[in-house]
């Protein structure tokens, strides 16, 4: 523990305060495009720093794709975008081997998934088969084609957007696949003032065009490295486990949080702590991320759903908030010297 004390001194990492500063710079940058959505922007960045994948779920036209693009542009890294359609094939995502007439060999043409940030637009419009192909990449961080394994470059983050499942022409993501996303956020409609500002801003051109990267790829990697070194004390880990356990035992939930959810909750909390310039995780970090990280993995009982939206979105959020409120915060001590 002493060699990494304070999370400093390792070449690839970054001072914790600097992580906070850079994160703030990214958030500011994104907010020039999407105003009034601090929470969504922060959650998205948290997922990026925690090397997770983000699912943005909302009705069309509230800026899901804009957020994903703005985030990608703020970091100087490779970005690709896949517009999912019902006829999209798995190879359209992962890449395809084509026969090179010259070399007389099959050559792998990497698909759009070979990028640091992959924007999967309207992921639930694709067929389950194609969805699976992407989700496999997300989990494995590699692509296997014709017996050859191609590793994806770090960092690799998928920012998928989807419309609410009851919209026409959608294939709902199964629970198992939703579980692959570290967090799900929704944008919500903008406030009146923000909407007016948006109108003024976009009258002439897309503001995305003028968006400049504020963090280089190397810096992003250093930030991610630092996030991984953020310290999580035993009480906080126990707290995360308590929360997950509470979701499994809650009488309003049919499906609780998986152990993977617990793991991702802690990872996200580490990123959240680092973004606030802290080299240790607080229960507050866990609390702040409980809804985005846990809610999309949980399935309410039909009784609890009664009277609510079919997908139970807001209901699930409420249940998670209630569980967070009811679970006692640990008053433990840190590890002794």
């Amino acid at each position, binding site marked *: 523990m002493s060699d990494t004390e304070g999370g400093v001194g390792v070449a690839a990492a970054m001072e914790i305060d600097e992580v906070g500063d850079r994160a703030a710079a990214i958030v500011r940058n994104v907010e020039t495009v999407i105003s009034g959505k601090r929470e969504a922007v922060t959650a998205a960045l948290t997922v990026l720093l925690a090397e997770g994948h983000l699912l943005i779920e909302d009705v069309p036209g509230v800026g899901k794709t804009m957020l994903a693009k703005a985030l990608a542009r703020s970091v100087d890294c490779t970005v690709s975008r896949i517009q999912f359609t019902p006829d999209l094939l798995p190879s359209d995502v992962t890449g395809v081997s084509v026969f090179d007439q010259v070399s007389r060999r099959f050559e792998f043409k990497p698909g759009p998934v070979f990028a640091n940030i992959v924007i999967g637009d309207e992921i639930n419009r694709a067929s389950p088969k194609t969805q699976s192909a992407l989700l496999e990449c997300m989990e494995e961080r590699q692509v296997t084609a014709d017996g050859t394994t191609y590793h994806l470059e770090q960092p690799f983050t998928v920012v998928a957007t989807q419309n609410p499942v009851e919209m026409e022409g959608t294939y709902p993501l199964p629970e198992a696949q939703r579980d692959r996303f570290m967090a799900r956020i929704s944008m919500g409609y903008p406030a009146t003032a923000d909407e007016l500002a948006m109108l003024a801003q976009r009258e002439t051109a897309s503001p995305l065009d003028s968006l400049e990267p504020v963090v280089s790829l190397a810096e992003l990697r250093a930030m991610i490295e630092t996030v991984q070194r953020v310290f999580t004390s035993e009480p906080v880990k126990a707290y995360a486990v308590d929360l997950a356990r509470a979701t499994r035992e809650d009488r309003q939930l049919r499906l609780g949080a998986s152990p993977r959810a617990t793991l991702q909750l802690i990872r996200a909390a580490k990123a959240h702590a680092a973004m606030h310039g802290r080299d240790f995780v607080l229960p507050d970090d866990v609390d702040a991320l409980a809804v985005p990280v846990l809610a999309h993995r949980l399935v309410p009982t039909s009784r609890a759903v009664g009277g609510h939206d079919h997908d139970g979105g807001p209901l699930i959020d409420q249940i998670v908030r209630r569980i967070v409120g009811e679970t006692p915060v640990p008053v433990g001590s840190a590890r*002794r*010297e």
Partner: protein
Amino acid sequence: MGPDRYPLTRAQSLALSGASLLLLLVATTALGPLIAGSGWWWAGAVVAVAVIGGGAALRAVRTPPSLVPPLELVVMLLALTLLFAGGTSLALVIPTAETFAVFGELTEGARRTIEQQSVPAIPVPALVFAITVGVGLIAVFLDLLVQTVRVPALAAIPMLVPVLVPGLFLAEGADAPALVLTAAAYLLLLRVDVRVRRAAELVQEDDRDDAPVVSAPKRAPIVSTMGASLGLAAIGLVAASVIAAATPSVSTSFLVGTGGPATLFARGVSPYVDLGRDLRRPEPVPAFSYVSPEGERPYFTLLTIERLEGQVWSATDRAVDGDNTLGTLPGPDGLDDDVLVEPRPIAVQVDQVRTAWLPVPYPTTEVSGVSGSWFWDQGTLNVRSVDSTTLGQQYRLTHLDVRPDVTQLRSAPVPSPGAVADATRRLPEDVPPIIAETAAAVTASAPTRYDAAVAIQAYLRGSDFEYSESAPVAEGYDGAGFDAIAAFLEQGAGYCVHFASTMAVLAREVGIPSRISIGYTAGTPGDGRVDDQIVIEVDSHDLHAWPELYFEGVGWVPFEPTPGRGSVPDYSRPNAGQTAPGVVPTGPAATPGATGRPEGDPDRALGGPGGTASAGAQAAQLGLIGLAVTLVLLLPAMIRIGVRAARRGGIRSGERPADAAWRELLATAVDLGLPVDPRRTVRGLAAELAERPAFRADPESPPGERVEARAALERVRDAVERERYGRVRGRDAAVDAESVAPAGAEDLERARRSALAADLEASSDALRADAPAVRRVAAVLLPGSLRPSARVAFGRPAPPGE
């Protein structure tokens, strides 16, 4: 008070109010043995109903909780006005300046009556007023605890007052049924409280499906109620035993007292010692003056001592009989018609003596003109008050000049068994032998009881004894116990106290019922005249004690065994003429002589509550009881101070200084009644506290300017977060320490800890600064952070090293 504070419905609030009212009314009955009748209880009940009912009504109309107790005090004032000063008020309940004057008089009267009455006390208006005020204040306090602070378990504290007070005056304490009923009412209150809490929780659970809100812990309140109840029961028991242990000699004479002379000679201080001490004072003080149209000059009795037992002789423990009001008194015991008796009117003007005992000659048949509530005592015909003093009294009396002749006395038969109080015949078994021997020797040749009495008087007035106020003190037998009498018989020197008590004891030895009267000799003619009558001045020089012996058919007749004092009655000198008045006046010749004249200050000596010795003793008792009660009331505050000191020690030298600082800060917040939810994070709680006005920047100040208190609060927050969840303790200090010597690391650590302590102070001060004064006082006296339910919020450190 946080987690277990639900908004109550009106019905629930009413149920709590009803239970507290019941508890108060039942507990008040525990005072029953102290006060005669039941009118006082009804008065108290009216005020209790007004206060608690008024409080309930105020809450029903959504009055801010902090305003309810002050408004209840107003309601109490209105009720008191209605009950006690309706005539001086506007519309019966609105007090005027005159009302407060009446209240002032009642308070003064209550003070006096509490000092002067015995148990059971007669409920004179002043006493009822005092009880009613007390009940009203307890009602306000009770309502505050039950409804505002929402800690019904603490209701036991105010209930200790009516329950414990009887124990101070009565050996057996309050009635067992009253105690049992009070306990039952208390449990009922707790039960109602638990039900209310459960109902509130159920409501919240029902809400949960629709609008999940942060819900309350489910078991903690009940556990805390039980814990608090047990704790309070323990405190009550300890307090009761402390008071009992601390006031063994107080218990029968303090305040209301049980013995007749309790007031004059409270706390068992011998009247004789007081009398002697005051006889030795140099400056005479006028006591009273009187005019006797027929020139009669009797001894004036203040009180009569019948019981000669133990180290302290006292008047018979006889409660004031409320039926024995003035002005006609019964005829004296044992007086037959054939004894020459002449009624004599006397007008008395009291100057400076202040006592609850009215100076009247024995036997007096009529007293008129005294103000206050005065009662005569069966047998001794002493006249005493329960609510006023002699000071400034002007009254007229008629007293019987009893002039028996020697033959009648000599032929008096053995008194029949029921003729006089047993106490006047009884002698303890361990009387020193010299007393019996002396009695036998002195009366050996006396053929009759009368002759024996005359012989004893002659013996004491003889050359074997001399009057000395200093000898007994010097030789260590001052006072009136049997040991003192034995010493007096051996030494042969003493003053009136010794002569009187010795004669009384010797008389009992030979079978004559006897008692000792304390009062004044006849006094000295002064310069003044009223209606051509010489005004006779009685001053402190005339303070005296004398024996009275009982002869069947004649009654109690005084003797004068003290040489140089008073006058020897004619009937006690069988060889002289016997037609003179019973008590021959002494003239100015009785002024101080070589040995014969006491000098003193009876005004102080028998000044009752105003007197130095007894007043001092009483003040000491009051102080003791006050101290004990204060200690009990301050117990929570003291525990809180101890806890705070322990936490400060933790900040200075503990393993987890920031944790100690944080818990202390939260405890302060809980004390001040701020909500502290145990399930919230450090950061969340800090953010909530930071919302308090004292932590916010002045709206006028430039944006971004930070209030120092807020910065301090955030530093404490960061420290505790780092300590609880950070990588290692004191990382910053450790990093900094690398650049300085190892010795510097310790200094840094110390500096860090003292900075933490300073930040804690700054944040706590800011919290206090925000709170209203009432809250601050409550935070000191009834710190909510001591409640078990509150302690779990911040007082439970996880096992270290996990």
